[in-house]
């Protein structure tokens, strides 16, 4: 198991956002986490990534293990630089005052392999040719979709082999959404492990190998994508039919 989450309980102040959830992700998998708004999906990712205060959710119980080691007390930046985990956060959070190129370069902060960085950059520009066109533009003036590409591209630049995505398709045109999902598939085929959060559950399940359904802080269902797609409960509540 690459990532194991065991009985995770998380609080924001007095609000209990996660009531003890467990799940795991294996190397080379695409796993998706679906659930209604406010179910605690983002909270789960933020707990894994140990975001700095004051945004940080507080883990009160349970454990998060990466490659069998607890990562609960590691510093957030070492997750990226040592463990090669990258997060594409909800709402993109690109650095609007930097150019596209600078955003991408910055993500290689902890990397020393100049050659690898070059190759990675080429790869990202291949995946998102639009970014190449806008290379020297201040990134805050990019359109929503372009920003989303930048956020994904930036995560890739860290040289990660485990990618966490939080609603990457939000605000994307259908065309781009499909393109993005195809890109994710391709990345996975190239060896990337992916944990995906997505509102569009059917799309997500079509892409993923396995899925988990989160409901108000508790794990409501889990299984392979097929099992979930065919589960009548899930169908009714999350697949809009």
């Amino acid at each position, binding site marked *: 198991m690459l990532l194991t989450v065991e009985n995770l309980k998380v609080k924001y102040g007095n609000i209990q956002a996660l009531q003890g959830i467990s799940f795991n992700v294996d190397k080379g998998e695409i796993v998706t986490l679906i659930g*209604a708004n*406010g179910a605690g999906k983002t909270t789960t990712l933020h707990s894994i990534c140990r975001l700095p205060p004051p945004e940080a959710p507080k883990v009160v119980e349970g454990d998060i293990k990466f490659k069998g080691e607890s990562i609960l007390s590691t510093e957030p930046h070492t997750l990226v630089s040592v463990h090669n985990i990258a997060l594409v956060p909800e709402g993109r959070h690109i650095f609007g005052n930097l150019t596209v190129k600078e955003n991408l370069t910055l993500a290689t902060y902890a990397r020393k392999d100049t050659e690898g960085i070059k190759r990675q950059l080429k790869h990202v520009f291949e995946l998102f040719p639009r970014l190449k066109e806008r290379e020297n533009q201040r990134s805050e003036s990019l359109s929503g979709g372009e920003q989303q590409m930048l956020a994904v591209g930036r995560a890739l630049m860290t040289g990660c082999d485990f990618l966490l995505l939080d609603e990457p398709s939000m605000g*994307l045109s259908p*065309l781009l959404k499909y393109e993005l*999902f195809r890109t994710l598939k391709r990345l996975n085929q190239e060896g990337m492990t992916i944990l995906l959060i997505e509102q569009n559950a059917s799309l997500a399940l079509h892409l993923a190998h396995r899925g988990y359904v989160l409901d108000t802080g508790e794990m409501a269902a889990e299984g392979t994508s097929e099992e979930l797609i065919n589960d009548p409960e899930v169908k009714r509540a999350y697949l809009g039919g």
Partner: protein
Amino acid sequence: MSLLEIKSMTHRFGGLKAVSELNISIEPGRVEGLIGHNGAGKTTVFNLVSGFYTPTEGNIIVDGQDTGGLKPHQVTALGVARTFQNIRLWKDMTVLDNIRISQHHRLGYSFFDAVMRTKRYMKRESEITAEAYKLLEELSLVDFANEYPKNLPYGTQRKVEIARALSVKPKLLLLDEPAAGLNSSDVVTLINLVKWISDNFPVTIWMIEHHMDVVMELCSHIVCIDFGETIAEGTPEEIRNNPAVISAYLGDDNI
């Protein structure tokens, strides 16, 4: 007569032409759609219509009046209200206050009334509050009247934002991606809400949306733009099958 008429409008950001020679007219009483690729200039069009930007060239005519030179709040007073792509509620004020403040253009009393608590002030304040409660009641948000938006679920925040826009008493309501970030069941609720508003309020709705189910379900007429220019317009059926729209926007859903 059209409620909104956009006449050969162009808008530039520095060298970038975000909207170019655009002509659109919106007929009263309908729900219309605006779709287009990311960065096509949709939000920019809404920003221009709501007076936040002034067009580099061309005119915008709302209900027979040219909005050139008007400030956004003046355009709002003409009857144009909107929601935002990213929710922009006043997060640290109650839902009720959010609703009341957006009646600022028709408060009908002055600073001195407020400080002296004149009769006029008392009367208008209670009217405003009553109207706000009525609106919240109608949208079944009344339970949240004294909640702070930041503590509400995302879907409810979207709804509050729509309620806030309605409290302006608009003739034209612009919705910028109302379904973004909503899950499937919330999307259904949203569709019903918009339908209900369109049936029960004297308001024309124009929405930007990337969720095709929503657009196809709600809109009777859709405009698709790319690079700030109209590439297609028509009924949902026409749009869905328009090859230009497919290649520039809808894409291929085979993953």
